[in-house]
C-alpha cells in the first residue's frame, strides 16, 4: 500500500540574530562568517518557547489544514536534540495538545539532525503495515551553540510536523533509504549544555559521505537521477554544505532554492529538512517530484523520493501559515537579549 503525507505544518519563532551581531562580541568578523556560512540570520526562541511548544504549534498547523479526527492518530513521534526533558517525552504533551490522546503510541527520537525524518520512516512503517491509520512525525529543535563557538552562528530553532497516512495524501513517499555508520563528528554528552564537534571532521567523512551515499543509494534503488526531480532539499547546517552537495549530485540552483532555508533561519537541526520540505510543499504542484536527504551526526542519512499528488490542489494550505508567512513580523535581537533568551547568562540563585 502506498503511504505518504496527508498534511504538514510548520513553525519558526519570530526572533532573529545576525552573525555580525554575534561576531561583534567574540571579536570575529561576523560579516564574513555570514558569507562563509551562507546564513544571513538565524531564528531565536523566546524564553517561553521550547521544542515542545514549537512541536505543538507545527502539529496544530498540520491539523488545521486537514479534516482528520485526531483520535484516528495511532502514533506520534517527536525527533529533537533539545527535548526539554531527558526523561519524559515531548510527544505526550504534543499528543494532548492536538487531542490525540489516549489511544496512541508515543516516543521521542534522537539522532542529531535527522530525528524528525527517522520519525517519518517509522510512521511509514506503522501506516504501511496497517498497524495505525495515521502517524505524526515531528522534527523540532531549539539547539544551542556554545558561546564563541562556530556553531553559535547557526544553531537555531524551528520545527515541522507531518501527518503520515494512506488516504487523501497530498504527496506519496514512494521510497526511503538510509545510510548509517558510527561516526563521531558531532555529539553532546548527557548533562552537558552545549554540543562538541570535530571541526573539519564534520565535513567530508561525516556530512558529505552520508548525504552522498544516502542520495546515491536512493537513486540506485529508484532508478532515478537529479534531473528527474522538480525539487531537492538536503540537510542544511548552513547554506554552503547543501549547495555543494546538491551540485555534486547534479542538482541545479532552481531545484534547491525553495527548500534552502538556512540563509533565513539558520540550522534548525531536527527541523531542518522537515522545514525545507514544508517550504517546498508550500508551492509544489500535482506531479512534482521531491528529493529529500536528511543528515544526522553520529551519523546517518535518511533519503526520500516524494511524489506530489492531485490531492494537493484541494489541500487547505491557507488554513495555516506558510514558511514565507512565518518569516514575516520578525524582531532582530542584540547579543545581550539573545544571551538572556537562551539562558547563557549565569543568574543568581534563591
Amino acid at each position: 500500500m502506498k503511504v505518504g503525507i496527508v498534511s504538514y505544518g510548520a513553525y519558526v519563532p519570530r526572533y532573529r540574530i545576525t552573525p555580525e551581531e554575534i561576531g561583534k562580541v567574540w571579536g570575529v568578523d561576523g560579516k564574513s562568517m555570514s558569507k562563509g556560512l551562507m546564513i544571513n540570520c538565524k531564528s531565536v526562541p523566546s524564553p517561553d518557547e521550547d521544542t515542545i511548544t514549537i512541536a505543538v504549534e507545527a502539529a496544530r498547523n498540520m491539523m488545521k489544514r486537514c479534516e482528520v479526527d485526531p483520535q484516528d492518530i495511532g502514533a506520534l513521534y517527536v525527533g529533537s536534540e533539545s527535548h526539554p526533558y531527558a526523561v519524559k517525552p515531548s510527544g505526550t504533551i504534543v499528543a494532548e495538545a492536538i487531542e490525540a490522546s489516549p489511544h496512541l503510541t508515543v516516543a521521542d527520537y534522537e539522532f542529531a539532525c535527522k530525528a524528525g525524518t527517522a520519525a517519518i520512516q517509522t510512521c511509514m512503517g506503522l501506516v504501511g503495515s496497517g498497524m495505525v491509520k495515521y502517524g505524526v512525525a515531528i522534527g523540532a529543535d531549539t539547539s544551542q551553540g556554545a558561546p564563541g563557538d562556530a556553531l553559535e552562528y547557526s544553531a537555531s530553532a524551528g520545527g515541522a510536523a507531518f501527518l503520515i497516512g494512506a488516504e487523501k495524501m497530498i504527496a506519496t513517499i514512494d521510497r526511503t533509504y538510509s545510510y548509517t555508520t558510527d561516526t563521531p563528528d558531532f555529539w553532546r554528552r548527557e548533562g552537558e549544555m552545549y554540543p562538541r564537534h570535530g571541526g573539519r571532521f564534520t565535513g567530508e567523512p561525516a556530512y558529505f559521505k552520508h548525504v552522498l551515499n544516502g542520495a546515491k543509494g536512493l537513486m540506485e534503488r529508484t532508478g532515478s537521477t537529479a534531473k528527474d526531480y522538480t525539487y531537492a532539499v538536503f540537510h542544511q547546517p548552513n547554506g554552503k554544505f547543501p549547495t555543494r552537495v546538491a551540485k555534486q549530485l547534479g542538482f541545479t540552483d532552481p531545484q534547491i532554492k525553495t527548500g534552502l532555508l538556512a540563509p533565513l533561519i539558520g540550522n534548525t537541526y531536527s527541523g531542518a529538512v522537515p522545514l525545507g520540505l514544508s517550504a517546498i510543499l508550500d508551492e509544489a504542484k500535482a506531479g512534482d517530484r521531491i528529493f529529500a536527504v536528511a543528515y544526522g551526526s553520529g551519523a546517518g542519512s535518511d533519503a526520500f523520493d516524494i511524489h506530489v499528488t492531485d490531492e494537493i490542489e484541494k489541500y487547505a494550505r491557507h488554513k495555516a501559515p506558510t514558511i514565507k508567512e512565518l518569516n514575516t513580523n520578525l524582531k532582530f535581537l542584540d547579543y545581550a537579549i539573545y544571551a538572556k533568551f537562551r539562558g547563557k547568562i549565569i543568574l543568581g540563585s534563591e
Partner: protein
Amino acid sequence: MATEPRFWRENPSRYNLVGIKCNSCGRHFFPPRAICPVCHRKSVGKIERIKLKGEGKIFSLTEVQEGPEELSMQKPYVVAMVEMEEGVRVTGQVIDCEACDLRIGTPVRVTLRKLSDEGPSGVIHYGYKFVPVKEKAP
C-alpha cells in the same frame, strides 16, 4: 513547592481551552464548572465539556513591569483580558508583539507556551497565551 497533580489536572483547559457549555441556557463558561451559575441545579446533567475555538479580541490590557520570578526573563510582558468568540473572557499573556501595537479590540488567537517551571530539575508547566492575529497577505 511541588505542584504536579494540581497543574496536571487542569491541562485539558490549559492546553486546549476546554470549558463548558450549559445546555440549559446555552452559555459558555471557562474554566469548566460543575454547575451553571445562572441555571443552578437545573443545569445538572446538562453540562457539556467544550473546547473554545481560540479566537477573540482584547478587552483590556496592561504591560506588566513587576512580575513573578518565572516571568523575569520576559518583562515587561503584556497581560490581557480577551473576550473570546463564545462570549467568555479569558486572562492571559499576549506575546510575539510590541505592547504599543496592541489596542482594546485587537484580534488575537490562542497558542501554547511555557508558563513556568519548578526550577531546573522540576516539571515544566505549559498553557495558553495569545498572539495577535496576522493580517492575511494579499
